[in-house]
């Protein structure tokens, strides 16, 4: 859910239900790396409530679009991490079987 003003779309707080530091902190990182973002941060209003508030302020672009791009970036980072990791594990496995054959 987005809380912001109708006239100025560049500043908004997004309330994400069923998320915690795991997602909010990662997306804050990708948002902060975006040059269009002037401020981004998150807070958990109450520890027993399962929600986080993500604040995004931009230089002019709609905050929701920028947040979407931040999520997109995070997703691409994850995909790259996954493929790199799988490759590294496969390399390790093949090098190990190679070693075994030498013995």
């Amino acid at each position, binding site marked *: 859910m987005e809380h912001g003003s109708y006239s100025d779309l560049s500043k908004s707080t997004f309330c994400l239900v069923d998320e915690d530091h795991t997602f909010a902190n990662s997306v804050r990182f990708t948002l902060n790396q975006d040059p269009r973002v002037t401020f981004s941060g998150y807070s958990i209003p109450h520890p027993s409530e399962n929600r986080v508030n993500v604040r995004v302020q931009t230089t002019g672009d709609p905050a929701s679009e920028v947040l979407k791009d931040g999520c997109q970036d*995070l997703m691409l980072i*994850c*995909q790259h991490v996954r493929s790199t990791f799988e490759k*590294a594990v496969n390399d390790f496995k093949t090098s190990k079987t190679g070693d075994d054959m030498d013995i």
Partner: protein
Amino acid sequence: MSEEENSMSEIENQEQNGGVPDYIMDLEDVPSKLPSHLQVLKTRVICNMDAPQHTDTLQYSGVYAALRVDNSVRLDSFCNNFKVEVKRFTDDDIEFDMIGIDPAIANAFRRILIAEVPTMAIERIYIANNTSLIQDEVLSHRLGLIPIDADPRLFEYPDNAGGENNEKNTIVFKLHVSCKKGHPRITVKSDALKWLPNGSELIADNTKPNADSKAKTFTSFSCSQGSRPEFSKKPPGPYNLDIILAKLGPGQEIELEAHAVKGVGKTHAKWSPVATAWYRMLPEVILMKDVKDDLAEELVSKCPVKVFDIEDIGKGRRKATVVNARACTLCRECIRGGQEWEDRVALRRVKDHFIFTIESTGALPPDVLFTEAVKILEDKCERVITELS
């Protein structure tokens, strides 16, 4: 900043540095754009005697705007710099280096591994008889914590079936052991749990079933799990067969049924797929001055994990060198003994180099756990993107 100014400020900074040696700038992951003293603070945690310094990561793209240095990380530069190196890989654990990633994301992976990658664990126990010393609830708790060797990806969450326990979301085990009178005591281990591929055998209520219809049990399996090809190869069961559950004296008996369902670690730790998952940042040990002869011997003997070694530099003189910085535990023993030691040795940690270790409890191999964790983070992103559109 023009080329000339750059080199000018570089020289100035060298002088301002209080003699930070050049080789810091030769480290491969230090790009030459920022002045060297700032670059060190950006990429390293400085571990002083009293407390670590500069532990924060500078995420905001404009932090160095005054220096006209762009701090944003573009996806392609991330992809070019990101590296994974597997160091150890067995059935139960994996250790690998993740290089070139922000702690925010590395920590997200760790948190997901512990709390959000699903596994199967025993959730409901139906006790028909328990005359052993161990109370029902304690026994149930012990059973719940047993790691179950069944691929959670083959099952659904119980909520999906609307409260029905069917062959897609429940694994049923039976435990029936007794110690005969006049026999020595016996120890009940997890291998006594027997898988029931056809579901529960206990009758759910006391009402007499009609003569023609079958009695209602605690599960409603429409077919046997035994027919699934995944289970004919490897039937579900406890991953460790030697976990002690209870001890029985002569004449005592336990008869119960245990139902395992799918869940995640944030609901209860029994569903956590990892014994633990953790990371540490790569330690960096640098000798700021030449440490020679007797001092070198002293330095080598100070370190409990043998980070330093002695090198002969001819003419009977010896010099200390750093040979195994990775082993450093940051006990700070080597910088004890006054300011002069703190000046000789610099202890640091590389902020974007993580030594990641995952210990699996058995349901999934450790490498699969990590890829599952990354997928979960991807799903979270996707969810938010669809919610925003």
